């Protein structure tokens, strides 16, 4: 049954862009008319160190903050999250809710038979795909892996369309953006890979769009029920801010 809110946990490695992906995901959901919130959690800001990001999307105001301990969806950005435990929670699916979803970026099967049984008992569907290769094929860089993962998320959900994703990506890359030193230097690396910023945005969009289609098709194949109520259910609520 579709819920009034979902929580997405994105365990990744530093430098993969999970923080960026969560921000774009929330911006896209907000553009589509949902309540949405994103936040990162990280320790030392270094590449390949564990870094997590979270997005919450709902038709009701979202008060919950911080780490997503009980996720509806877990997105694994790197096999080392599973194989080396580079995650804030062990095992990586700890706390996952019934009828949930796991999206894994890997070129090999990472789940043990025990993992599969636990997830199957909770009716959690698993989509494993080499999204890094996918990103290299379409955008020409592994740095677009996050865009492929993002596209897959929205392809599965089905209630947040490609125009909203485009808006989220443009918002992130066209606006003046403040980030930590590490993120700023990665931004500059990826910008150098493309002649113009608009090329970068176009390639990111193409990657997200192709992954969107692939994941939507997969969701149909495995009979995934809608997870999130569509935005027509959003009801404005007085959340008690200082100003009305």
């Amino acid at each position, binding site marked *: 049954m579709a819920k009034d809110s979902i929580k997405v946990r994105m365990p990744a490695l530093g430098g993969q862009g999970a923080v960026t992906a969560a921000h774009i995901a*929330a911006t896209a959901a907000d553009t589509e008319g949902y309540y949405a919130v994103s936040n*990162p959690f990280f320790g030392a800001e270094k590449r390949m160190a564990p870094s997590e990001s979270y997005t919450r999307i709902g038709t009701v105001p979202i*008060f*919950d903050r911080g780490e997503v301990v009980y996720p509806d969806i877990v997105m694994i950005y790197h096999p080392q999250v599973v194989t080396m435990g580079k995650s804030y929670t062990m095992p990586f699916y700890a706390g996952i809710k019934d009828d949930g979803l796991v999206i894994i970026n890997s070129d090999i099967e990472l789940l043990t038979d025990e993992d599969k049984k636990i997830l199957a008992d909770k009716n959690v569907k698993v989509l494993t795909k080499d999204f890094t290769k996918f990103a290299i094929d379409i955008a020409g860089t592994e740095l677009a892996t996050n865009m492929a993962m993002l596209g897959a998320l929205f392809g599965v959900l089905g209630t947040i369309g490609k125009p909203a994703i485009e808006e989220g990506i443009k918002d992130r890359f066209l606006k003046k953006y403040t980030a930590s030193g590490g993120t700023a230097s990665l931004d500059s690396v990826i910008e150098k890979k493309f002649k113009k910023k608009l090329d970068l945005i176009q390639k990111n969009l193409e990657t997200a769009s192709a992954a969107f289609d692939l994941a939507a098709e997969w969701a149909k194949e495995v009979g995934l029920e809608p997870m999130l109520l569509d935005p027509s259910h959003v009801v404005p609520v007085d959340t008690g801010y*200082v*100003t009305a």
Partner: protein
Amino acid sequence: MTKRSDMTAEKNWSGQKIVSPDYLLFEAPREKHFMTGSEVVKEAMKRCTVDASVSYPITPQSEAAHLIGELWAEGYIGTYFRGENEFGVMSEVAGCAMAGSRTVTTTSGPGTLRAMENFPMWSGTRIPCQLILMARGINSPLTIQPDNLEVSFLLETGCMIWYAENVQELFDMTIAAFIVAEKPDVHIPIITAVDGFFVSHTRESVMLPADDIALPPYDPYAAPLPPIDSEMPPGRFLRDPFVMKSNYISYATHASWQWEVRSAADRSRKYAKHFLKGLVHTTGDDVADVVFVACGTASHQAKEAHRELAKLGVTCKVVKLRTIRPFPTEELIEATKGAKYIFVPEFNVTGWLYNEVVKALYGRSESEVIGKPRVAGGMSMPVEEILKEVANFVKID
């Protein structure tokens, strides 16, 4: 460089139209944006005609400090510089404010503790500066994650302390903070706190007024202590230091001064009531068995728990404390009337807010006060854990 002499009666030095605080906070049309807490600090300070800001990097407030620096580069802030460390920063903030500047700074966790000596000095010199505090853990082993134990160290510094729940409230509160702190009958420093990461790094929708309007400038000559100028040394009372006179006059002066600083905080209540729309904010059932009393992110988590408890038929209310100093004792007593259980969820190990609540309700409430759930060290507080605590006291089907 921008300067006060560039101002006119209608416009500040950056060309923004000067409007009344009420217009800026309550009447100006607002548009929706999608921003982090750090970004919204920039937006708030942009509209505050700030004279001076001093910064020093420490996660999670570094981005806010950086963005205030951009405001200086863009001509919105009079002067901006980096201190040697947080102790230096808070001392330099005092210097700027004593010289009559509307001054702001930001810090977090270990930075707050490093600067500690300055906070009672700030209140003692009656400067109306603002510290935007993005709380993080303070102990070893090192953490950069949200934990608000540091706030307990600030409770008796004589500074006002307000606590914002989310990005929107951070915007409104940091503007209101200058207005209230600068009232001549208040005129003490203000600390506007949020939980680091949960607010500083969280991106959510926020309603902002246009950025071509701003607060009127600070008038230092309306202050209870005149600012430094060619006649005045820093803090007029320092001209004949009482520290040199170990006698009754010295004790009496210091004691009465300490009372006066706290009385000044008390006198802020009426202004805070107006500009924050109440020292506390209550949501949920009018009469409730379960009442959560919380501040900051903990009140957000309690609201999430309220939604779940309502589905289970448990009457519930969330009382969010917007001000911690002055403490909203009477408002708290009123808002918790008839509660069977008062839960105080907190993001620190000692339960400083629980202690404050128990002290305020002592002898004036029949309710059982429970200092749970409590998480620390950067842990989050999932609603599921709050419900488990409630289930220990209330029958939930």
